């Protein structure tokens, strides 16, 4: 590595840095500042100190939105578990498996809008899922997947899960392929059954990958927006209103930019806390609870 002139180095970095400055760094500070004001983009901002943050705690909708977003984290362990299972199942170089792996990955590269639109109709009262369930006599009358307040959030979560499976499956596949088969062989020779092999040999070696996937999966879960926007518009009765969905509504429909920024700050703090917790959890080997 040679010592280069400052000009050269920063010359290369200039476009990237200036863009990041304007569109990433600047918004962090201004956004945080904006959260202490009341602003509707038309009249000058009004300073309200911690008023917005206090308001969040007495705003029924905000509390529900935050609760829903945190609840959405339930999708993470399910998603990771299923992805690992899928990776284990499909971890062979058969041509057929390559095709099947590809099938699972298709939702990943498909726009969330296409996915949500398709699922919205699948989950409709007269849609594919109810049709199948009723004709197979699993249920007697159609289920209100998206219109029953106690079911809607689970339905949306299921869509997120469906879309993400292939993504994590591929990562876990790569992870599995990076594990030296010697370890598993040794365990098998010692008489360990497949479940024990997984629990005591494979999974611990996979831990870094699981850590990585869990973090990005958790962050994605908290930030869910498009599924809700397309499928339920936050309803019924606020049951699918997530934090980002509410933020969008506050910002684009109600023009409460200061309040929305405060919500954004709260969200960022939650995400930061989540990332830290994930980091600690996996560092201290708390994987027992997973297997």
């Amino acid at each position, binding site marked *: 590595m040679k010592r280069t002139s400052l000009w050269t180095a920063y010359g290369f970095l200039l476009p990237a840095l200036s863009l990041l400055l304007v569109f990433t760094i600047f918004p962090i500070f201004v956004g945080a500042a904006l959260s202490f004001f009341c602003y*509707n*983009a*038309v*009249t000058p901002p009004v300073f309200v100190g911690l008023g917005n943050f206090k308001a969040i705690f*007495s705003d029924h*909708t905000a509390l529900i939105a935050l609760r829903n977003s945190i609840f959405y984290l339930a999708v993470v362990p399910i998603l990771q578990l299923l992805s690992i299972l899928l990776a284990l199942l499909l971890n062979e170089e058969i041509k057929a498996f390559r095709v099947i792996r590809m099938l699972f990955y298709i939702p990943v590269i498909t726009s969330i809008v296409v996915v949500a639109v398709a699922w919205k109709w699948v989950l409709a009262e007269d849609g594919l899922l109810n049709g199948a369930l009723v004709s197979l006599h699993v249920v007697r009358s159609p289920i209100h997947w998206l219109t029953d307040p106690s079911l809607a959030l689970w339905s949306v979560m299921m869509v997120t899960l469906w879309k993400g499976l292939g993504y994590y499956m591929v990562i876990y596949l790569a992870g599995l392929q990076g594990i030296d088969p010697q370890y598993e062989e040794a365990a098998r020779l010692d008489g360990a059954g497949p479940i024990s092999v997984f629990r005591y040999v494979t999974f611990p070696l996979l831990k870094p990958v699981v850590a990585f996937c869990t973090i990005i999966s958790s962050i994605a879960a908290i930030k869910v927006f498009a599924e809700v926007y397309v499928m339920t518009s936050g*309803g019924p009765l606020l049951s699918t209103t997530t934090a980002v969905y509410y933020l969008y509504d506050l910002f*684009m*429909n109600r*023009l409460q930019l200061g309040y929305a920024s405060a919500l954004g700050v709260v969200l960022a703090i939650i995400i930061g806390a989540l990332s830290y917790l994930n980091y600690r959890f996996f560092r201290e080997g708390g994987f027992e609870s997973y297997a």
Partner: protein
Amino acid sequence: MEDVIARWEKKHPGLSVEWIDLPFSAIQQKLIAAIVSGEPPSVINLNTDMARQLAESGILLNLNEAVSREERGRYYPGFWSPHAFPWYVTTEVLIYNKAIFQQAGLDPNKPPKTWDELVQDAKIIKEKTGLYGWFPAIKFIQELQEQGIPVVDSTGKKALFDQPPAVAWLSMYVDLFQQGIIPRETLDLSKTYQQAVDLYQAGRLGILQTGPQFLNRVRNEAPSVYQETQVAPLPLGKGKVISAAIMNLVIPKNAPHQKEAVDFALFLTNDENQLAFSHQVLVFPSTIKASEDSYFHASTGDSVLDTARRIGADELKIARELTPDLPNAKPRNEAIQAALENALLGRKSPGAALHDAAMMWDDLLK
């Protein structure tokens, strides 16, 4: 409209008015974007819900300051709000099918004058003719107020519609629904009005609550039913008010040419222009003088339309926007819908259903 614009432009040389029509679904996004980017339209025509939403975000001009008391006085006080000029108004009347009344043994010249009578007539018609006598599009909160039943307390933070009188009103609907007197389609509150209209035009509905302008449609699309149609005032409940649907004009704070915008809005909604508009479309002016014009009591040869015009104009005196001006309209409305659905389908008792909705309202109104 072009005529109105031309006349106003003459009075204000150097300024021209551009009139843009947008489909309803597109309005919200475009409008907000235009306002935020600093290039808003000067005057915007919106329904009351949207006008209130904009007002809530603090971007509308306060008209109590921009418009003198004298100028404000020409509007019905029940229609004026600090952030919106009321433009044209529609209320509801009862239209009914004479032939169906006769078939059921009811006197076609004695339409129901009270809600109890209406319920009675609905039962008789269904019983005697097998056709539906009534197909309500339930506007629960507005109807409660028409019955003199309070919806929220004076602080606006506590819901009161789970009290016995309101429960009784809902129970009335539940009984009718479960006895099959009113159609099951009443349940789908987003489609009810359209379906009721279709049923009436097919000659298979006895009574329809509707804005008077609908009569023109019946006249064109179902002339045979129109022959049998009569108009009656909406029965007056104990609250002695009727729900009105108001179209508003609002002005954003950052509108260019603010003074002229106010002037244009005042011009568009003055007695003369509103009266002219009422001649074109069967809607009603929001100003007192215009609504008292003899046009609304004239005989044009079509007695049905004449009656409708007269009744509609008379109703203006007791009409008001009955949608409560409270925050979080969308989830609150959803809560009411859910309560209606639960009660009508028998999933919960009317009292329990309303109580649940009231609790949600209390949370949302905090």
